[in-house]
């Protein structure tokens, strides 16, 4: 048997096990319910606002954008937190101590984070279908678009989360280096309102990052062709979406393995021990 393929298969099993454990964990269930309740409440308050220039109501327009934002948030912050945590608690060191364990570990992470999109989307889509009319306006072609936007968004953003998790000095710093930039991008990426109202340079900045493009791609999947008038250039800019997300995906595929290999090389028992000492001090 090919040892590397075997490690990848073992890693897939690991990701599946972690996913099942996550579904059973009250902490993760709480997180899903919390985001679901928050998003649905926000949309319900604005349910009768008609979006200017279209015949659509606000929840119809905002829901796809919010799904896009959730995807980016989950795929950057999720792995960033868990990797930073695993560096400190010795999970990664364990992976390093078994042959090709890091390959399996990373595979497990990728599968876990991919699968986690399913519950985080379903808790919004299912109640959303009952609460708001005509969520999906494009039939099955729309769902096909959702599929490729999600896949491309995944490839573009998951490596970012892994790089952040590998580089931050400690779990507490994920807030500064992961959460803060994501929240800023959330504010300027046209998720809650079209971003043409912002300054030109802010629009330029936000169009460098994947969040805007994932949101745009999701809107193009859910909304009718006519709603494109709300967008920059009055178009869904599908080609540009593929290009920007594709560049991020390629960059991520090149950079993330290098950064992670470097991080894994530096893992040692005394590093874990030091992190433990520090964590215990926080408790005291």
């Amino acid at each position, binding site marked *: 048997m090919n040892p590397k393929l*075997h490690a990848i298969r073992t890693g897939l099993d690991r990701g599946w096990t972690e996913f099942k454990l996550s579904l059973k964990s009250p902490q993760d269930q709480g997180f899903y319910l919390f985001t679901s309740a928050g998003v649905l409440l926000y949309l319900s308050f604005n349910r009768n606002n008609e979006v200017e220039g279209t015949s659509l109501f606000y929840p119809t327009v905002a829901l796809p954008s919010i799904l896009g934002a959730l995807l980016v948030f989950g795929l950057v912050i999720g792995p960033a937190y868990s990797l930073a945590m695993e560096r400190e608690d010795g999970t990664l060191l364990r992976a390093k101590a078994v042959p090709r364990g890091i390959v399996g570990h990373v595979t497990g992470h990728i599968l876990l984070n991919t699968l986690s999109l399913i519950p985080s989307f379903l808790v919004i889509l299912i109640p959303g279908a009952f609460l708001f009319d005509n969520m999906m306006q494009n039939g099955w072609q729309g769902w096909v678009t959702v599929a490729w936007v999600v896949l491309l968004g995944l490839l573009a953003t998951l490596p970012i989360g892994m790089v952040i998790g590998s580089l931050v000095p400690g779990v507490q710093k994920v807030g500064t280096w992961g959460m803060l930039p994501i929240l800023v991008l959330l504010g300027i990426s046209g998720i809650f309102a079209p971003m043409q109202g912002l300054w030109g340079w802010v629009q330029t900045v936000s169009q460098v990052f994947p969040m805007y493009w994932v949101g745009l791609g999701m809107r193009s999947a859910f909304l009718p062709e006519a709603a494109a008038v709300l967008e920059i250039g009055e178009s869904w800019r599908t080609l540009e979406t593929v290009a920007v997300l594709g560049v991020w995906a390629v960059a991520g595929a090149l950079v993330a393995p290098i950064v992670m290999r470097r991080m894994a090389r530096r893992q040692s028992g005394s590093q874990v021990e030091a992190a*433990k000492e520090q964590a215990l001090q926080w408790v005291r």
Partner: protein
Amino acid sequence: MSMTRGEGVVVEVNELRMRYGSNDVLDGVEFQVHHGEVITLLGPNGAGKTTTIEILEGFRMRSAGRVSVLGVDPAEGNEDWRARVGVVLQSWRDHARWTPRALLTHLGRYYEPYSTPERSRPYDVEELIRVVGIEEQAEQKIRTLSGGQRRRLDVAVGIIGRPELLFLDEPTAGFDPQARREFHDIVHRLSDLEDTTILLTTHDLDEAEKLADRILILAGGRIVADGSADQLARRVTRDAQVRWSRNGESFVHATPDATGFVRELFAQHGDEIADLEVRRATLEDTYIAMVQQHETGHPETAGAAFEEVKT
């Protein structure tokens, strides 16, 4: 591959140096470990035991020197090499939601491609759970395990791949005496039945004496002593201490020939002798003498100073 105990060098360390900034933690460490041996690396806190073992595990880069582990430089050890080496890590809160059985099964799978006719890998999970004595906890969440139970799981994880060489860093820290004894049984079993070469660090002298075929004392960045507990004790002083009482009065006498002295004693006084006690220098005496001398920087006088203390 069939080597008998004592043949074949499994670990070879020459002129090993480790420097942090301007501080030399290891300053020319030299030792060998032979196939099938159980070696204890003993030393005060901060002597560089953990650093040494992490260099051998391939988890840390050395500053200088030559190191060979199973014939490979650990700094360049590939995954095939990794499969032959076991490491017992001090876990803390990793895999909190997993059960011991699931974790052992998962980690064991990584070793499947490295199974050989002589050494089938991985270890059978159920057997391993029995060996380390966590049958009752096998289906509990790891988070709920006590400290001692967790450490047993750590040992199980370290040997799941049926390693030829096993590293343990402070394996019994935080164990109660019962758990400690059970752990010692596991080590003996691994060494005897599995033909595993074992290198462990400890600062517990009693443990070193009970487990090790050979003890290495690391102090001042060097190996200052290398031998069995008995040999080390004899290196410091050949004298034994003889205590006895006669007519309610206590006596002490130091002599290199305790047997002869006692024979003489009985010949002279016969039944009057009571409370007889012959005591050789213990590993503790040796250890303290060696470490003290190295800390004060006069290694060459270690033996002499020890004699003075005794008289």
